[in-house]
C-alpha cells in the first residue's frame, strides 16, 4: 500500500528526515531533564543551618497574637533545695549560663565571650577571686543577678525565677575553684526570703489589645495657651503646640531653670513641636519662654483633665 505513495529510496529519505527530527526532540528532552536542573543546582550555596524556633506561641501566625493568659503564683522556693549546689541545680545552671551569660562571660566564665570585646568595664572573670564588685558569695551573686551592676553592662536578670537564679549562682561559683566565703549563718538568713515570698507570673494579653488599652488610657493634653511676650516667642519657635505640651507635661526637669528648659527641648527638636531655630534663642528669650510655659502648663493642669479641643 505504501508503494502507492513512495518508493523504497523516497521512503529512506523520509525516514532519515524523521529520524533527524525525533533525534533533535530527544536531545532537547535530555538537555531539559539533565542539564537544566543540574545547572540550576550547581554551586547552589548549602542551606543555612536550621534555626530552632524560640519564643512566641507555636501555631500562631503572628507571635504577638497569642491568647490572653491569666497570671498565676509560683509556690515559694524551699531554701534547703537551693542553698547548696546539687547536680540537678548545676545542670540547670549550666543550661541557663549557656543561654544568658556565655556571650559575654565566655564558655568557661573567664570573661572572654565574643560580645565582651566592646564592653567597659570588661565582664567578670569567674575563675579569679579578685575584683568582684558585689562579692563572690551566694547572697551577693544573687543580688547581682536581681539588680544588675549599675554603671556596667551587667543587666538585671530579675525576670528569671528565683530557683533559676539560684541555679545560676551555684554554676557561677562552680566556675571558680577558690573559697567564695559563704558563712552558714549568713546563708540561713538569706534563705529565709525564699521561705516567705512566692512569685507571681503576670497576666498576658495579646499585643494589639495592649496597644488598644494604652490608646484608651492616653489623654492628650490641652494645647498650650501662653500669654504675653512668651506667647509671641512660642508662636515663632514652635510648629505644633500639642507636641510641645506633651513633651513638657511628661517631664519635670525643665521647670528648674531656663537652662534646664533648653536642655530638655533641644535634644528632641523638631519632633517635640519646636522648630530647629529655637537653638538660636538668646538667654533672655529662654527666660521669657520658660516663665510663659510654666504659667501655661500650670494653668492647664489646674484647669482639669478633660481632653478639650486642639489647635
Amino acid at each position: 500500500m505504501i508503494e502507492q505513495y513512495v518508493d523504497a529510496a523516497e521512503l529512506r529519505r523520509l525516514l532519515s528526515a524523521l529520524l533527524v527530527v525525533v533525534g533533535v526532540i530527544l536531545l532537547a528532552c535530555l538537555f531539559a531533564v539533565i542539564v537544566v536542573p543540574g545547572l540550576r543546582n550547581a554551586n547552589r550555596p548549602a542551606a543555612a543551618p536550621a534555626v530552632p524556633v524560640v519564643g512566641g506561641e507555636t501555631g500562631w501566625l503572628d507571635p504577638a497574637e497569642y491568647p490572653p493568659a491569666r497570671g498565676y503564683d509560683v509556690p515559694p522556693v524551699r531554701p534547703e533545695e537551693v542553698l547548696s549546689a546539687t547536680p540537678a541545680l548545676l545542670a540547670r545552671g549550666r543550661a541557663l549560663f549557656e543561654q544568658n551569660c556565655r556571650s559575654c562571660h565566655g564558655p568557661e566564665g573567664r570573661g572572654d565571650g565574643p560580645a565582651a570585646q566592646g564592653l567597659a568595664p570588661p565582664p567578670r572573670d569567674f575563675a579569679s577571686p579578685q575584683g568582684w564588685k558585689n562579692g563572690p558569695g551566694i547572697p551577693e551573686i544573687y543580688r547581682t543577678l536581681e539588680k544588675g551592676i549599675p554603671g556596667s553592662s551587667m543587666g538585671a536578670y530579675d525576670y528569671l525565677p528565683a530557683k533559676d537564679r539560684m541555679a545560676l549562682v551555684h554554676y557561677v561559683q562552680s566556675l571558680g575553684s577558690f573559697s567564695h566565703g559563704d558563712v552558714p549563718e549568713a546563708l540561713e538568713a538569706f534563705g529565709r526570703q525564699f521561705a516567705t515570698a512566692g512569685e507571681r507570673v503576670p497576666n498576658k494579653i495579646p499585643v494589639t489589645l495592649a496597644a488598644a488599652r494604652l490608646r484608651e488610657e492616653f489623654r492628650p493634653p490641652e494645647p498650650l495657651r501662653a500669654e504675653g511676650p512668651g506667647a509671641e516667642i512660642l508662636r515663632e519657635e514652635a510648629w505644633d503646640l500639642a507636641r510641645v505640651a506633651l513633651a513638657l507635661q511628661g517631664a519635670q526637669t525643665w521647670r528648674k531653670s531656663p537652662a534646664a528648659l533648653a536642655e530638655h527641648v533641644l535634644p528632641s527638636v523638631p519632633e517635640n513641636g519646636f522648630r530647629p531655630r529655637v537653638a538660636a534663642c538668646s538667654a533672655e528669650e529662654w527666660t521669657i519662654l520658660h516663665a510663659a510655659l510654666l504659667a501655661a502648663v500650670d494653668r492647664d493642669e489646674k484647669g482639669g483633665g478633660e481632653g478639650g479641643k486642639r489647635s
Partner: protein
Amino acid sequence: MTGGERMVTAETAAEPGGKAFAVLGLFETAEDILAAAQGLRDKGLGRLEAYTPYPVHGLDAALGHRRSPLAGMVLVMGFIGAVSAFLFQMWATGIDYPIVVGGKAPMAWQAFIPILFEVMVLFATFTAGLGMLLLMNRLPFYGHPILSSASIGKITRDRFALSLEAYGGAFDAREARAALEEAGATEVEILPAPEPSGPWSANYLLKGFFAVGAACLVAGYATYWAVKLFPVLPPMVHMEDQPKLDPQEPSALFRDGRGMQSPPSGTVARGFLPYSPAAPEEAAGLANPLPRTEPVLDRGQKAYRTHCAVCHGVLGDGVPTLTASYGAKPANLQARAIRELSDGKIYDAIVRGKNAMPSYAPHLSVEDRWSVVHYVRVLQRAQNATDEDLERGGRP
C-alpha cells in the same frame, strides 16, 4: 563537486559512469508522448518526467506518478508534535517544577490541551510547508538543467519532451538514449548533472538542523561542567540571591562591608539639631512628644519589627532568632529594670547604643525612635497586663 574533478558535459555524461542528470527526448505531438510514456515507464530506466507547453490530459496516469506522501508526513509529525507538547508540559509543570495553577493538580492534562493543539498544528504546518519544498520538490534547486538545455526553446513552443532522470541507483545514459529513440523521439539530448547546490540543499539543511541540536547539547554539558568545576561565574540562584542592600546584612559595595551605613560623622540632617545629652542620665528627663495614637503605635510596631525584633524578639523578651544563630544575648525589655526606665533613657539607648548594641540613630528617624519607645511600652504592657486588661479580653 571538488575542484579536482573535471566539468561534466553532455559528452562525458554519456560515457559509462559519467554524471548525467537526465536524457531528454523531444516528441512532435501530445499523442506521441502519451504512447511513449507507457512503454518507457515499464522499462524502469529512470524516473520518467514530462515537459509540455500545455497540460496534456492523461499524462499523469501515463507517467505513473505516485500519490503524494505529504499527507502521511503531516499526520506523523502532527502526532509527534502533540505527544511532545503533552510530555513537555507534564515534565515542566508536573515533575521539574510542580506548580498549582487555577487550583488544579500539577498534572491536570485538561489544561495541556490548548498548547498540545497548537504545537500539533505547528509541527504539521511546518512539515507540510518544509516537507513539500525540501523533501518532495527537493528545493532549493538553483538552475534546473532543463532550463539550460538546447531544447528548452522548442518545449516552450510546440514540442513535448519526455525525460528519463537519474534517480536512486545506477543510471545508464546510453541505455536511456536508446530507449527514447526507440520510443520515437525526434531529438535526444543528454543533460549533465548540475553543480551541487552547496550548503542550502535540503540535505545540508537537515544535517545543519541536527548539528545545531547536537551543538546545543554539547554547549549545555560544557557549561554544566564548567560551572561545576570552575565556579567563577555562579549561575542565578533562583530569587534568593538578589544584589541589593539589606539592613543587618553584609554588602560588598562599601569598604567596611556593611549594608547599614552611618552618615558621615559630624553631619546633621537639615531641620534637625545634634543630639546633645552627653550621658544617658541627662536624657532621663526627656518626655515622649508623640501622642499614643493608632498611627504612632503602628509606626512604632513597623520600626520595632524591622530594626529591633531581630535581637530583642517580637515580644521584646530578648529571645530572638539571632540568639540561636549567634549566641547573642540582647537585653530582655520585659525585665523590671527596663520597665522602670523612663522614656528618655530608652530613647537614649536607641540613639547612643548600649553595650554591644550599636546606635540606631542613622537607621531610625526621630519620629520612629519615639514611636518605638511607645511600642516597647505596649509590649511591656502585653506581658504584664492588669486584671482589668484581662477582663476586657478580646474586646479592646
